[in-house]
């Protein structure tokens, strides 16, 4: 494969493209789904091909193929060149890329236990046991559990001389119990919604998740929700647990800090951003205790890698520092527009898609509070746990998020359980009301394998480090 890729690069150079790169990606995805004591599906998908990206006459062209013969690769390279020339028909400013060192390197995920070497029977047994425990509660109508494993092999080769080889391993899983009574339906998931929790790690990640140990509690909570009162509409103090904070960071900081959105190039589908360039370095995004970083180097994060999909080395970048907007997620094309170098956020959903600016691990840095102290310090409030619904406007300002469960906090104690809890806000007002963040003891990197963006839709695997946080004067419930 190396020689095939190098010969395409040689061909692109002979065609005098301003820039060219080729990515080979081979992905194996194993997915196991158990529902109601029955193995609903076990599948293994194999997918490989190349994507070729070029700049000609200042315009971009991209072509991708799953056929890997020498002739097809050259044909695809020529098609990319042809497409770039048509892009150039409307170009106003020729594409200029930030400089990057052309690395020749190898990177592999560090893991202990190859998830593909673990017998299928063992994985299936684990999920069957989980659904058995969930179904022990009479009111649980549906119990679903899943495991997913990815093995991704990547080569990146550019006309600038880069040649990078990466081997990524990802593991994840989770489950959901749905309780039904009459027309009422309530669910609880573990360890989080969106198919659970994921990491760049081996099967050791699954073994330490506590899937079995938490199943009875999860089923009990789903059943209890059926009889719980609806969360009242009010304005109050709220505490948000780590997994819901991951969603909060994702929607209200991760997406709006993508520089392509800021520059308007994702406006037609995913929308724009309120974090406009004039705000860089001066906009008070949050309270002074809010520090958010993009960090693709952190061990185990689902957004951790060696190099992004245009050969930029993984790194750590401040996005929000002491409450102030100080950075964006960038690419080689967009970084020069803020007089910066790329911080390595260009990622493609496989070989067939064009790289876009995507989140990596967007982490809220831990604060100083112990979780029990935070609850004890809250006289009157509501605790929100585990994401259920998410909606935000196309500039990422007005959001409404719902969780699976909430609890009233009264005089420093968790008391009444609530169902159908929702909170809403305007992003900067919300983050400026943050007055407490829990410390490293309660901090976890939540892996999300389903971040959507782009046309055709691309799914990115991203993560968010977070711990429970407290916010003041937040609107809860729905205005009638």
């Amino acid at each position, binding site marked *: 494969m190396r020689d095939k890729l190098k010969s395409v690069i040689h061909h692109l150079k002979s065609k005098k493209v301003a820039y060219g790169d080729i990515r080979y990606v081979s992905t194996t995805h194993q997915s196991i789904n158990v529902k109601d004591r029955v193995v609903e599906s076990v599948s293994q998908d194999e997918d490989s091909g190349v994507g070729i990206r070029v700049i000609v006459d200042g315009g971009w062209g991209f072509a991708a193929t799953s056929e890997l013969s020498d002739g097809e690769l050259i044909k695809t390279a020529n*098609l990319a060149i042809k497409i770039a020339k048509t892009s150039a028909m409307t170009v106003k400013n020729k594409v200029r890329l930030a400089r990057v060192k052309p690395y020749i390197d190898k990177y592999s995920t560090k893991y202990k236990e190859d998830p593909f070497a673990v017998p299928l029977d063992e994985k299936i047994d684990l999920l069957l046991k989980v659904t058995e425990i969930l179904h022990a509660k009479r009111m649980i109508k549906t119990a679903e559990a899943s495991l997913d494993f990815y093995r991704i092999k990547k080569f990146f080769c550019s006309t600038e001389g880069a040649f990078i080889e990466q081997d990524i391993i990802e593991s994840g899983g989770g489950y959901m119990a749905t309780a039904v009574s009459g027309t009422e339906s309530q669910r609880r998931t573990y360890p989080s919604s969106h198919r659970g929790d994921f990491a760049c790690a081996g099967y050791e990640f699954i073994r330490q998740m506590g899937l079995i140990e938490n199943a009875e509690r999860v089923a009990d909570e789903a059943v209890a929700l059926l009889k719980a009162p609806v969360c009242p509409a009010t304005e109050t103090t709220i505490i948000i647990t780590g997994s819901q904070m991951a969603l909060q960071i994702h929607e209200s900081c991760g997406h709006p800090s993508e520089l392509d959105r800021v520059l308007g190039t994702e406006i037609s589908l995913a929308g724009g951003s309120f974090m406009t360039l004039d705000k860089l370095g001066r906009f008070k995004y949050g309270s002074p205790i809010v520090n958010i970083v993009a960090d693709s180097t952190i061990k185990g994060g689902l957004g951790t890698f060696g190099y992004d999909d245009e050969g930029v080395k993984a790194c750590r970048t401040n996005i929000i520092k002491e409450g102030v907007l100080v950075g964006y997620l960038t690419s080689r094309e967009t970084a020069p527009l803020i007089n910066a170098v790329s911080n390595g956020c260009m990622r493609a959903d496989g070989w067939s898609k064009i790289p876009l600016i995507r989140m990596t691990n967007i982490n809220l840095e831990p604060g100083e509070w112990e979780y029990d102290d935070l609850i004890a310090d809250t006289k009157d409030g509501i605790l929100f746990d585990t994401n259920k619904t998410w909606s935000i406007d196309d500039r990422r300002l007005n959001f409404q998020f719902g969780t699976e469960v909430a609890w009233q906090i009264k005089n420093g104690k968790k008391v009444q359980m609530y169902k159908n809890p929702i909170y809403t806000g305007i992003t900067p007002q919300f983050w400026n009301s943050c007055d407490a963040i829990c410390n490293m003891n309660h901090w976890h990197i939540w892996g999300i394998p389903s971040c959507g963006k782009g046309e055709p839709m691309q799914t990115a695997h991203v993560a968010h480090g977070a711990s429970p946080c407290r916010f003041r004067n937040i609107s809860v419930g729905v205005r009638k």
Partner: protein
Amino acid sequence: MIGENRILTTLRAVIKKSPAEHTEAVFIGGTLGLTRYANSYIHQNLTENNTKVIFRTVTNSRIGVTSTNSFNKDDLYRGLVNSFKIAQHQQPNPDFKGLPMSCKHKKTKTFFEPTAIYSPRQRAEVIRKICRQAEKYGITMAGAFSTSSSEIAVVNSNGLALYQPLTTAYINLIAMTDTSSGYAEALSRRVVKIPFASLTETAFKKCLDGRNPVDIEPGRYDVILEPVAVSSIIDWLSSIAFGAKPYLEKTSFLSNKLGKKVMGSEMTIYDDGSDSSGLAFPFDFEGVPKKRVYFVKKGIAGRPVYDTIYAAKAKTRSTGHCMPPGFSGGPMASNIFIAPGKKSKSSLIASVKNGILVTRFFYINGLLNTTKAMMTGMTRDGTFRIKNGKIIGPVKNLRFTESVTKAFSRIGGISKETQLVKNWWKDIGCCSAPTILIKRFNFSGKTEF
């Protein structure tokens, strides 16, 4: 395009060697050409050529699924054998009653050569023309224009062998000024049917009329939902209510409601993959012909769509709505029609005393309370105030939070004009939606633009 003969011959030959009791191969392949533009220039421009073959093998009701994107015979056979090996580790699935038998299908023309050969240059020329027109009005353009050709085939060990070539053309346009945006889109199997000039005019008009929007307080307003807005709500209903999975799990608003009134008598919603006035696709991914299924007929609850597995669970027959093997969401409705009304869109607007017109929604979420079809979402790209039957000006965007079944029980009128709107299953389906007037629609919040 690989072609019917080569695809069916290859898959038949591979299946013939299968060690499994039942074997099925689903082929999905094709070429997508997509040109995206923003800030009035093309910033992404691509061609993707891919194939995927998904094998489902079953022995003693134990099911294994694998896929490969190689069409090499050796790779295909290896994929099939892996599927057989996976099945050995499976538990028997009591709802597997066998693969479908071969049967007659309605011939449906879904492939049009001019769309298949439409070039990147042709797409760029259309976009260049739109952007140049926009410049005259001080408008900036963004959007995407795609043309694609695909092939779908289903072959199984019962002798079923189906092949369907498809083409799809889709464009969306967002026209923008500093304070406004306007939207238009069109979808067709035939690129020559895309009305570029009128789409451009619509997007420009909404954008120019939408300049300097004013603040409006949330609350209940009569609302005109244009087809794209209606379709995005229906997309969510399809996911949370119209499939057998949520229906049998009793999380759908249709569960236990067969024959009962769930919406206003004006509302009829059905799925029909064989109706060429939509984006027809005649069979599902098991090769079962698509049947018309009424979810709501004159306000009365009907039934969901089924594949063979869910049909066995419910002791009924497949309606031809199986998704590709490995899809965990169960059978899905993908060719949805909302029956049109008798009034014109303009007469609906003229009947509104104090209301709001919504061009489209953004980021709807339908998981708030699925048994009540409670949803939330934001308006975007053209939200206007209506007073005394006239559109009087633009308003800033609003959030709605509303039970859709309740909202569709307060219908003030449905337009006779309908539009095909892209949904999550773009190449094999869409939503045919009219404009709908809903009384006292609940806007629960507002944003800053």
